[in-house]
């Protein structure tokens, strides 16, 4: 081997290897594809918002009028209930005992009336007897007065006894009302969405973070769309809207506006997180859609696109509007 050839050969080999490295080492990194294709707006200009599905009646968090231990639950999750159907029963042993007492009180009051009636009859007949004597000498004036007064006193006693009966009846009715309030009933017809209470648990009154029972009318669903306050001016009630199911964009549905809540609220509902940390306010528009078109559940989130006027491209028209306003602008 001669150095004459070795070095140039090594150099050529080195250069070729370097070229190979330069070509080979700079392959672009592969692109990670999306798991599912994200929804994209079918409109040219649009407002995007997140929507959450709710029942048309809104989701009713059932409360209880009286606090107490739950005795039994009449419904399961998913049950269809009619208006006024019982949902759950609170413990009523105490109230039943009171009811028995009140009933006894009524019976006692009624018995007292009988006694008062008998006493009155007795006094009345004695008084009548004395009144019937025609010869005033046969009976002293004092005796007559005594009998008459006795009759009047027993009459008053009878009236008092009758009033006591009424009072006892009212007491009984009160207890019966309390008893009926221990049964919590459905305020509207709908489906039971959630049951968060079980027999033996204590049902408190007042506002609860976790409702005892969630009820909603699912015949018609609404999607509540949050529109950022910065975009609210672009929102038009008459424009078209489309909602896409998250996770598979081939499920989409046309929306029609039900109503817009005129009060702009702080954004909170959408991530479902109780300690939402977002401080913007949103306009909420409610849309209805045909439930049969989507396999969807109440509380699910959707991506909603609402068509809006394209303000970006018609700058010229804006200018002409400004011109039309006159020289002052």
């Amino acid at each position, binding site marked *: 081997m001669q150095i004459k050839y070795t070095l*140039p050969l090594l150099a050529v080999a080195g250069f*070729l290897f*370097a070229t190979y490295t330069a070509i080979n080492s700079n392959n*672009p*990194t592969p692109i*990670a594809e999306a798991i599912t294709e*994200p929804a994209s707006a079918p*409109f040219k200009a649009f407002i995007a918002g997140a929507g959450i599905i709710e029942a048309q009646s809104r989701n009713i968090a059932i409360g209880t009028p009286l606090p107490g231990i739950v005795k039994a639950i009449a419904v399961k999750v998913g049950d269809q209930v009619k208006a006024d159907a019982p949902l759950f029963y609170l413990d009523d042993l105490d109230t039943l005992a009171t009811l028995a007492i009140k009933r006894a009180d009524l019976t006692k009051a009624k018995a007292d009336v009988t006694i008062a009636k008998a006493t009155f009859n007795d006094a009345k007949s004695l008084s009548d007897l004395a009144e019937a004597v025609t010869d005033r000498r046969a009976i002293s004036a004092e005796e007559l007065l005594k009998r008459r007064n006795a009759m009047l006193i027993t009459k008053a006693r009878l009236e008092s006894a009758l009033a006591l009966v009424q009072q006892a009846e009212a007491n009984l009715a009160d207890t019966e009302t309390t008893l009926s309030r221990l049964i919590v009933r459905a305020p509207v017809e709908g489906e039971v969405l959630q049951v968060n209470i079980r027999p033996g648990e204590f049902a408190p009154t007042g506002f609860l973070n976790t409702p005892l029972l969630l009820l909603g009318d699912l015949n018609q669903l609404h999607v509540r769309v949050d529109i950022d306050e910065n975009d609210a001016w672009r929102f038009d009630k008459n424009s078209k809207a489309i909602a896409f199911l998250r996770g598979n964009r081939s499920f989409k549905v046309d929306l029609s506006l039900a109503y817009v809540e005129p009060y702009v609220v702080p954004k909170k509902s959408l991530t479902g997180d109780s300690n939402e940390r977002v401080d913007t306010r949103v306009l909420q528009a409610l849309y209805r859609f045909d439930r049969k078109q989507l396999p969807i559940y109440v509380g699910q989130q959707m991506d909603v696109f609402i068509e809006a006027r394209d303000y970006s491209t018609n700058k010229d028209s804006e200018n002409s509007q400004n011109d039309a306003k006159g020289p002052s602008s």
Partner: protein
Amino acid sequence: MNHIALKMLMGDTGKYIGIVMGLTFASLIMTQQPAIFLGIMSRTYSFIADVGLPDIWVMDSKVQFVDDIKPLQDTELYRVRGISGVEWAMPMYKGLLKARLTDGTFQTCNVVGLDDATLIGGPPMMLEGKLDDLRRSDSVIVDIDGARDKLGKPSPIPGGKAIPLKIGDNLELNDRRAIVVGIAKVTRTFQSQPVIYTTYSRAKSYAPKERKLLSFVLVKAKKGQDLAELTRSIREKTGLAAYTQTEFITLTYEYFMHNTGIPINFGISVLLGFIVGAAIAGQTFYNFTLENLRQFGVLKAMGTSNWTLLRMILLQAVLVGSIGYGLGVGLTALFGFAMRHTILAFKFPWQLLLFSGAGVSLICIFAAIISILKVIRLEPAIVFKG
């Protein structure tokens, strides 16, 4: 004549190798140092380059580079989605969180939160597990370098290699449980922290409580949409900064160029390589010409024209130059190949071949010019002196 020139050059093997070695060394330093420099610089934006799917990145207008996170409100996502020309827009969380390992040590990790439904922005290559597995509860995907090294379990033998993190192992991120469901391959980043991928909502629960947590909005433009126009309209409508992927890479790159000592350090290395290479090669080549002055004198006396002599010297210079260059770049490539599995940053684009080629050419031209001047000024009578 060329034959004589080569004979002259290779006549003294020691000197010949000396010249070639000098040039090889210069070429090696002028290729290898910039390659490391480019490697380090490319790591500053490797995260952006890895997320290939979106066209546009939207962020706070004051963001200076990719790790400079200034979070946005969640509703900004919907404002960006509402801009015409946007095919889709997805949220991304990126932040540094502390992971607690099984042995109780803490490790700062780069946590990336991807959109829950589409998982857009995921790692470019999954080695184990699937990206879908992120839908499982408490699941995270860890990058292979992090899993092997920084997040690995300590070796049972003291001082031994860490046991790599496997699928099914768990970590603690900010006191919350995280289960490894996949191992991914990502391009190393500048700070070389382990990268942990999870979903956006889970990343928010791992992150410390802050009012705003949305780091980036990733935007895909509609087909046929002009990207420059779309970024302009996003900027106008939302007041946020919007960059195309290349613009964001440039932004990050420029930040590191202007605000760190990396370019100047490597610039000095390259310059030193050039100077040392030029000095060694130039001097040896000049010495070689001096020693062969008698031969040149003889040739001149025999009536060889200056032009022919010049061509002879040029041939010699080109030959040693090409050999030195070839060996230098070859050694650099070999170095890169040997170091491919280590933490060393190394990037060898074709432009670098041209750069070092130009450098070696300059050295050769410099050495050749001195020698040529000497030979042209040479009196043929010198042969008969001394």
